[in-house]
């Protein structure tokens, strides 16, 4: 954006110039830029999980495009981290096991140094296996890992913002297997009943869970019909197509504020970005060995610099 020449500093991007002059929040990266960030986040995930031989790469890779879109384009948020997030958009990760993608995105957007990513799951680390507030990691507002709880928490935050007439939106991501937990349906019912229309819930609809495809383990049936029957506006999107992700999140935002909560069913490929990890439930919670790690990293361009 800024190019040093003999004549001085040349500002190549007019939008950046406007931003510098007007004190507006940071410039919006374009689709290409977001894809580059996503590539680096995928590298972070593989390296983090490989380093401690533990963690959940499959869902993390599948949700990378969404998480990058949220933190680098869609959500209005700022550093340093504020638990209450007044005036900001909030994000809750209900399927906490995909902590690697969240930690990478939080770090890459400036909440803590990327060097800390190497401490994932190590003792005395702030980067716990499942996200928590307990060690004070900036960016995390509630612990998650035991499934089915995050949607309720997000609803509470949304209701609190409404009580305060705070314009911020609340975003929450859940897994699809996670929708087998009963508390999720209590939450879904209550969000419609209380017209929580500053809430956007996204489901990582990858059709996989630990014991196999969701269809075989415990079929979710017609998910869109279910959410609609519970009173939500429901959108669908290809969660691994960055342009579609941006457009759908934009559409969701435009549909908010109309007395109904909004849900996005997000078709993703578990393990997206690494060919041998895609197309199976195997990589839900398994770390790649040295050889597999090398093969994976060879498929993912290093764009922002490995931690």
């Amino acid at each position, binding site marked *: 954006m800024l190019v040093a020449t003999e004549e001085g500093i040349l500002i190549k991007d007019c939008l950046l110039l406007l931003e510098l002059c007007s004190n507006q929040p940071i410039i919006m990266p374009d689709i290409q830029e977001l894809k580059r960030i996503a590539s680096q986040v995928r590298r972070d995930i593989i390296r983090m999980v490989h380093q401690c031989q533990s963690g959940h790469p499959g869902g993390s890779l599948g949700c990378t495009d969404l998480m990058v879109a949220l933190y680098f384009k869609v959500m209005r948020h700022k550093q340093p981290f504020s638990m209450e997030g007044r005036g900001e958009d909030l994000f809750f990760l209900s399927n906490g096991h995909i902590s690697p993608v969240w930690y990478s995105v939080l770090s890459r957007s400036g909440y803590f140094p990327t060097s800390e990513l190497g401490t994932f799951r190590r003792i005395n680390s702030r980067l716990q296996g499942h996200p928590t507030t307990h060690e004070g990691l900036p960016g995390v507002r*509630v*612990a998650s890992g035991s499934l089915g709880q995050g*949607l*309720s928490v997000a609803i*509470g935050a*949304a209701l*609190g913002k409404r009580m305060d007439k*705070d314009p911020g939106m609340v975003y929450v991501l859940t897994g699809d297997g996670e929708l087998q937990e009963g508390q999720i349906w209590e939450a879904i*019912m209550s969000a419609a009943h209380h017209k929580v229309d500053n809430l956007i819930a996204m489901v990582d609809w990858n059709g996989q869970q630990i014991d196999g495809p969701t269809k075989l383990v415990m079929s979710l049936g017609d998910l869109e019909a279910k959410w609609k029957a519970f009173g939500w506006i429901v959108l669908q999107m290809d969660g691994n197509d960055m342009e579609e992700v941006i457009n759908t999140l934009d559409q969701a935002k435009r549909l908010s504020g109309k007395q109904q909560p909004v849900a996005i069913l997000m078709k993703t490929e578990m393990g997206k970005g690494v060919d041998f990890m895609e197309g199976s439930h195997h990589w839900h919670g398994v770390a790649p060995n040295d050889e597999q790690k090398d093969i994976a990293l060879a498929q993912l361009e290093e764009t922002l610099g490995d931690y």
Partner: protein
Amino acid sequence: MLKDYPVTGKKATRDGFGDGLLEIGRRNHNVVALCADLAGSLKMNAFIDAFPERYVQVGIAEANMMGIAAGLATVGKIPYTGTFANFSTGRVYDQIRQSIAYSHKNVKICASHAGLTLGEDGATHQILEDIGMMKMLPGMTVINPCDYQQTKAATMAIAEHHGPVYLRFGRPSWPIFMPENLPFVIGKGILIQEGSDVTIIATGHLVAYAMEAVASLEAQGISAELINIHTIKPLDEEIILDSVAKTRCVVTAEEHQRNGGLGDSVAQLLARRMPSPQEYVAVNDSFGESGTPDQLLKKYGLSPEAIHEAAKTVIGRK
């Protein structure tokens, strides 16, 4: 009863909660309330009428209620959840553990109709394990006030405390003997009566019974020291150790299982610091049943007579 603590009336501790909630709601605009289809029983209607925009009805969905409370706390509210004690604990244990305790959320879990005195609804509703379950969670403060006044004061005081609180109280009309407007200090026991032969430590409804036992023991020439412990966690170790150093034997009294409640907390303290004979007045590893509060307390061994006898027994073990 004891002359320093005359009985001034009868009101349910849950009324103390309802009145305290309204009052703290007036003073602190961050206080919000949630209920799971039991607003009337929890005496929350006065708050709801006064502050409808600060109230969330969740229906019969307690797990969701705990999560919503955690979310409200995250954005700076002080949520008070309200339902029966059995629905406030066992039913939602993981939700409290992960979303509230481990996440250190400033949620006040207000649990009514605790213990046998819930009465005719019977054992499915008579929780006797809740103090145990809640005290085992790191960072959870556990309070069981003894009468209407103490419950009202506790309800207001916990708004100032930063961290999750479990506040447990009851259904029936019960004697009022604590002074109005006595400041409630979390974690500080109250010396109700000085004595020298035995220390009686009581919580909740059984404080009133313990006071009767102190009087009947005195009539038999036995000098009992009575401590009201309203905060089981954190336990006021100093007041207990000071007393037992003097009397060298203890009776604990609670409307709870013998396992895992006040008695076990005191026993753990004494085992570590001052091993002493102890007798428990508590439910002996049994579920309750339908009955009136008075009948049930008597049948399950929670009575002034039981406390009296336990005191004599433990003195004999010195």
